[in-house]
């Protein structure tokens, strides 16, 4: 059976440039911390990756700290600033890796489209004079909703709070300029941009540095101990560089056109409800609900029909739990009846049409069953 992969926000297909970089790094002997020629060769490769990433986003290379992934970058920022004594405020629709890195965090509410309430943020910052760190994502993994980061950053600066931005869903889809200008720290992931799994980065853009979580041998300027996973890091840098070049040279528009084709096609399925249409969102992400049909059933039915999509954020057990993101948006029952379609950089019109055919057939069958 031909498969149609529309779950880019879980992981993107590998980009050819990333594959080449990984293979080259696999054949590079040496530990970047070693003094000999082999070690220095590995170190050179590591620093080249750092520079490529820095150039892609117009930041200084020494802002880039490699980690083992987006989760780790987010955890270092949130837990690291909390350890330093800051109160933590997290958006209600943040990823679990943020929420679980700060169990005692105060929750910043969102509106029906998933946009964080700036009025609530100001109230929270005003109500308590202790220094805070606010974690707000660039774009939501489930809905694609883009957060008002510039406005949030202005508030944070006024109240001397730090802003951490989880930007893992951004590269290759939207420009990160505004997020970089807004953030004190910013998390990136390699595999969400078409790199291999196993590398991420924390950009430290302001003066404040979070406390390290894993100290190890003091690598990454003390931010993240442990021998750097060079193949994953080299692959990540190549992937993000390629993803950003692709986005700027028409890829972004291509995604937006495909999303438009998807939304237009969904008009033929009257029971389908597209979620979060009132806010700016990623050009590759659509969250849609089918009232009365459990998310898990839809994901299974579509998988059996050859379409890979997802719902909520999957627990390691693979179970589909109700989405905390949609619940925080006040969607009630619909929170358990939605799926996420996220287009990878490889998506084509054929993929969209295959999805629409399978989706409308499924919706019709479930409607017949319910009748």
């Amino acid at each position: 059976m031909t498969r149609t992969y529309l779950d880019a926000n879980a992981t993107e297909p590998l980009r050819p440039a990333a594959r080449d970089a990984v293979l080259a790094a696999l054949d590079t002997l040496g530990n970047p911390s070693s003094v000999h020629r082999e070690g220095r060769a590995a170190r050179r490769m590591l620093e080249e990756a750092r520079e490529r990433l820095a150039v892609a986003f117009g930041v200084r290379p020494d802002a880039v700290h490699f980690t083992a992934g987006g989760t780790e970058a987010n955890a270092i920022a949130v837990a690291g600033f909390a350890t330093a004594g800051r109160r933590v405020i997290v958006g209600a629709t943040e990823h679990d890796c943020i929420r679980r890195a700060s169990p005692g965090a105060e929750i910043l509410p969102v509106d029906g489209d998933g946009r964080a309430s700036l009025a609530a943020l100001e109230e929270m910052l005003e109500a308590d004079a202790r220094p805070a760190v606010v974690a707000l994502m660039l774009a939501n993994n489930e809905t694609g909703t883009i957060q008002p980061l510039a406005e949030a950053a202005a508030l944070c600066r006024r109240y001397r709070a730090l802003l951490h931005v989880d930007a893992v869903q951004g590269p290759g889809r939207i420009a990160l300029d505004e997020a970089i200008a807004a953030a004190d720290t910013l998390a990136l992931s390699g595999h969400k941009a078409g790199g291999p799994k196993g590398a991420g980065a924390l950009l430290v853009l302001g003066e404040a540095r979070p406390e390290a979580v894993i100290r190890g041998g003091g690598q990454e300027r003390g931010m993240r101990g442990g021998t750097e996973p060079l193949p994953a890091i080299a692959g990540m840098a190549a992937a993000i560089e390629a993803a950003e070049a692709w986005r700027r040279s028409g890829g972004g528009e291509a995604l937006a056109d495909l999303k438009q084709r998807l939304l237009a096609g969904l008009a033929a399925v009257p029971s389908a409800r597209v979620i979060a249409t009132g806010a700016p969102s990623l050009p590759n992400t659509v969250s849609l609900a089918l009232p009365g049909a459990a998310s898990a059933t839809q994901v299974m039915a579509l998988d059996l029909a050859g379409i890979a999509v997802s719902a909520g954020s999957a627990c390691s057990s693979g179970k589909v739990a109700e989405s905390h993101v949609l619940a925080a948006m006040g969607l009630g029952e619909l929170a358990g009846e939605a799926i996420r379609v996220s287009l990878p950089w490889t998506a084509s019109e054929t993929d969209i049409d295959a999805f629409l055919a399978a989706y409308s057939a499924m919706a019709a069958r479930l409607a017949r069953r319910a009748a």
Partner: protein
Amino acid sequence: MRVVVAMSGGVDSSVVAALMAEAGHEVIGITLQLYDHGAAVGRKGACCAGQDIHDARRVADRLGIDHYVLDMEARFRAAVIADFADSYARGETPIPCVRCNQKLKFVDLLAVARDLGADALATGHYARIVEDAGEPALAVAADAARDQSYFLFATRREDLAFLRFPLGDMTKDRVRSHATRLGLPVADKPDSQDICFVPSGSYADLVTKLRPEAAESGEIVTEDGRVLGRHRGIARYTVGQAKGLGEASRDGEQRMHVLRVESGARRVVVGPRAALGRNKLEAGEVNWLIEPPASPLRCAAKLRGREAPAPASVRWDGSVAHVTMDAPATVAPGQAAVFYDGPRVLGGGFIRAA
């Protein structure tokens, strides 16, 4: 045909999936996540899924079939665990496996199977679906020692045609030899024990947490009202029980057994074994797998899981089954009374307090 197999991660349902796949069917494995395993074993940081889901996935991978995990924690909590605690708080002895079959496996999972366009739902239960005058009927397993038909009485009659119990004709040894032959990674896995959601075995702790009043101490009395001792909460007592009565375990020379549990007065009533037997009982929430009988029905009634059916007459008044046993029997409210005609299951209900 497309068939959904309920895969628990144990050897039985794994063999079902393997045999169905071997027979050339399109098999979809589904594992129900019923409770948070880490919380159940009280180990912080233990995986939410536990070993069984991991095992089910490994078996599915080995077979090359699609496999999904369905989150039914909330539903299980409401329909099975809460009911379990409530039942104990009423002084009854619940059978959670029936509730789980009745509410989750053969309603929710069955609906998912139909939603997925499946032609059948297969499970690893030891029971058989047989033909009777062209109609599917539920019957006991070939291996009487393994028979689970008692726990399936609440299956809806209209769903029998959709169900498959491929192990109904097999012995456990045969099932294990299939598992070995098919190279299933669970071939040597021990049988599951007790109640799945209290792996520590201490169900009383769970009941106490949900219904604290069921753990409050009270009197242990004889039928004629003499106080023999005190108990440590009614949740710890079930009809027929002789253990755990402490100083009330004997009345003179006579060994005492629990005759009934009175939740209102928080009393446990005890008496000699001879006083345990009852001929009459009532069963509610009745499910018939035949046309509901208009006149008294001669059959064999099974009143607990590990007991053979015994001759009885059942009168159905439209909402309650009035059961008269030919010989006195131990009757524990909350357990099921299941009616058989030879190997065939006719129906059943939950025993009500007298």
